[in-house]
């Protein structure tokens, strides 16, 4: 991987020789590809103050010794921002972001084959008054299509220099940097900012102007793209389109679970081995317990999901760059719209099958606040992979491995049923929310269906790396304190000398468990289960180890067989089923609650989530337990 494409000159320390550049443009115009080409691996991701949109910044050292810091902004059609993502773009361009100076130069990135809308955006950007360069990207495609663009005429009409680029092949990057430098060197300070929200009449006027510029300088392509139309004939077809979408999802999940299993297992074993190593070499005591049970198993329980999340994201980024995700949202819009969800909620909900945390983080693309909140609220109902160890344990303990109708295995059917219950309840909750609390239609669905493009592997891998990094830092900073808290509750106070029960029984968690037990008795939970639920708040799969602890079966998460046998002796079938029902709904994941707090910037929504999910879990477990008992399974 090459670094910055320019010879790295010694960095000058004079602050005046540094300049701030922002990349703006329509979605899918290649801003991120251009950002990667410009900055290579000299990138860092942070947060904008107060909002949770990622701030992607990178550096380029120019031949004249200047350092340009480049900002990659979310795509937009207008500075009239709507989604949290677009608000960041507008505020960054206008220099309204807290603690940030306005950019010295704007690079407007345009897809050369799709200029109409970006020309109108350029007219808006001109009003902002910053010096600007137009990067006419995807010039390779424009040439292949035989599109003839009068570059000089266009530059004159829009009043700013133009550089043609092919971001994926790093063509035109030097020219682009040179143009930016020229603007800075010329001391182009920019004009006064006269931008204001355009009204309908002004948008019409700007379109007419854009149309005039386009007509004057661009001649229609000799060989326009016919590929996209042909592919869409299949992928957007009401029948084959949906069939392909569902096949794709199936393959994706298959891959998520098979490809990542080995890596996940390896990580899990690594963390167990590290824990065992520390336990063997440090004297038993509080520190050791904290390191092994709190820190290592805590961090480990999150990181084991990283391979799954990465595989899922790999597919999502690939499909996004190909141009398919907009089609998926199109195909799903009506299906999800029936439940009051926006078509754009499709990707966040899809991610939530791996883990609700990245799912909730990716709801930022949804414009409307209510649409976004509804999606955040139902995302944790999707069956995340942390539920699988719990489901597997209970199923192997209580569901006989018999065949139904000769071919289908009963445990497999139950697992499928649990997944279906998650999806159906998410749609149901959303439906009821939209009917009872937030009446009214979801936001308009207006989405560009970009032309299909071959994804660029380097760019895909770079995005994947960034998302993985964001997940680890974001999740890590939330999960770690939660883990320590749960460890504290489960370890203090310690067991008295000569105690016969497991130590957790005497701890705060044990006491809370015993206290709660009468409340959970109607759903068939005994005190051991209630106690295990407390550490299980750290992350869902921790409940398996916690059950192992309360039933004094060592190493339960590594070999759940013994635990399953014990459970089948101690619990009735009704109790086992009620526990499953509980886990479909219960908010047994402190990190999710933490992420909701961060994304909504309030304690109200995590509280609402906690209450409604616990309520649903109790109700479902109650119904399952009482029904099963009445049918003689108690």
């Amino acid at each position: 991987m090459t670094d910055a494409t320019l010879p790295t000159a010694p960095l000058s320390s004079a602050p005046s020789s540094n300049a701030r550049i922002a990349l703006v443009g329509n979605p899918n115009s290649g801003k991120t590809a251009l950002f990667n080409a410009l900055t290579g691996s000299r990138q860092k991701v942070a947060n904008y103050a107060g909002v949770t949109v990622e701030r992607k910044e990178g550096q380029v050292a120019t031949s004249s010794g200047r350092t340009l810091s480049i900002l990659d902004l979310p795509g937009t059609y207008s500075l009239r921002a709507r989604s949290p993502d677009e608000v960041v773009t507008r505020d960054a361009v206008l220099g309204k972001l807290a603690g940030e100076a306005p950019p010295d130069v704007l690079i407007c990135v345009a897809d050369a084959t799709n200029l109409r809308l970006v020309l109108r955006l350029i007219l808006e950007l001109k009003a902002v008054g910053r010096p600007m360069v137009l990067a006419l990207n995807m010039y390779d495609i424009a040439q292949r299509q035989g599109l003839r663009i009068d570059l000089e005429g266009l530059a004159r009409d829009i009043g700013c220099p133009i550089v043609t680029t092919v971001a994926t092949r790093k063509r035109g990057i030097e020219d682009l940097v040179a143009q930016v430098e020229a603007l800075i060197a010329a001391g182009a300070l920019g004009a006064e900012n006269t931008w204001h929200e355009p009204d309908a009449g002004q948008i019409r006027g700007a379109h007419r102007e854009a149309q005039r510029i386009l007509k004057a300088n661009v001649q229609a392509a000799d060989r326009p793209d016919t590929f996209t139309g042909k592919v869409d004939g299949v992928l957007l077809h009401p029948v084959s389109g949906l069939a392909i979408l569902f096949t794709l999802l199936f393959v994706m999940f298959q891959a998520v679970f098979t490809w990542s299993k080995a890596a996940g297992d390896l990580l899990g074993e690594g963390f167990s081995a590290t824990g065992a190593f520390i336990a063997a070499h440090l004297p038993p005591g509080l520190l050791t317990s904290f390191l092994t049970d709190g820190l290592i198993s805590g961090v480990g329980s999150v990181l084991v999901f990283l391979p799954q999340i990465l595989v899922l994201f790999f597919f999502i980024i690939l499909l996004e760059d190909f141009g398919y995700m907009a089609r998926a949202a199109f195909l799903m819009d009506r299906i999800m719209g029936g439940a009051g969800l926006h078509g754009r909620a499709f990707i966040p909900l899809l991610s939530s099958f791996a883990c609700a945390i990245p799912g909730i983080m990716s709801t930022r693309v949804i414009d409307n606040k209510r649409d976004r909140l509804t999606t955040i609220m139902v995302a944790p109902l999707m069956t995340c992979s942390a539920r699988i160890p719990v489901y597997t344990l209970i199923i192997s303990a209580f569901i006989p491995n018999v065949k139904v109708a000769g071919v289908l295995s009963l445990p497999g059917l139950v697992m499928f049923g649990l997944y279906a219950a998650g999806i159906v309840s998410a749609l149901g909750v959303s439906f009821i929310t939209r009917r009872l609390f937030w009446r009214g239609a979801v936001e308009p669905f207006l989405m560009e269906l970009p032309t299909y493009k071959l994804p660029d592997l380097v760019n895909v891998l770079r995005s994947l790396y960034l998302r993985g990094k964001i997940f680890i830092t974001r999740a890590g900073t939330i999960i770690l304190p939660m883990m320590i808290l749960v460890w504290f509750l489960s370890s203090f106070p310690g067991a008295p000398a000569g105690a016969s029960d497991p130590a957790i029984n005497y701890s705060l968690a044990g006491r809370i468990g015993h206290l709660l037990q009468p409340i959970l008795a109607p759903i068939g939970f005994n005190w051991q289960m209630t106690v295990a639920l407390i550490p299980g708040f750290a992350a869902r799969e921790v409940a398996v180890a916690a059950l192992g602890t309360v039933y004094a079966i060592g190493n339960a998460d590594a070999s759940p067989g013994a635990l399953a046998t014990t459970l089948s002796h101690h619990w009735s079938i009704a109790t086992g089923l009620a526990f499953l029902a509980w886990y479909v709904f219960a908010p047994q994941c402190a990190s999710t609650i933490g992420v909701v707090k961060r994304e909504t910037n309030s304690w109200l929504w995590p509280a609402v989530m906690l209450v409604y999910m616990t309520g649903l879990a109790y109700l479902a477990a109650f119904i399952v337990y009482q029904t099963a008992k009445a049918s003689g399974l108690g």
Partner: protein
Amino acid sequence: MHDTLAEPEKTAAATDGATVRLSVAKPGDRGVIVDVQAGRQSGDHGVSVDELHRRLLEFGFVEGARIEVLHEGAIWRDPIAVRLDDMRIGLRRRDAADVWIQLDAE
């Protein structure tokens, strides 16, 4: 600029040269946008009519643009995918009701 346009029968089969709402157009229909209005069509879009109007305009649904309906969804034939000049755009029929197109005469 965009006022007096007679309401055509919603159910009337779109004949060549007729002016219809984009929300009732079928795949294969093509023509020119003759009017994009605000406030005519009641009904809930989740945003104000003026906001919807501006969004449509921003996406290039402006008078004079060429449009062709390409695809429609499986459920209630919704949403629709259109080719608008050189771009492809997906939108719901409900939100397309205020876009009037004059179908080409064959």
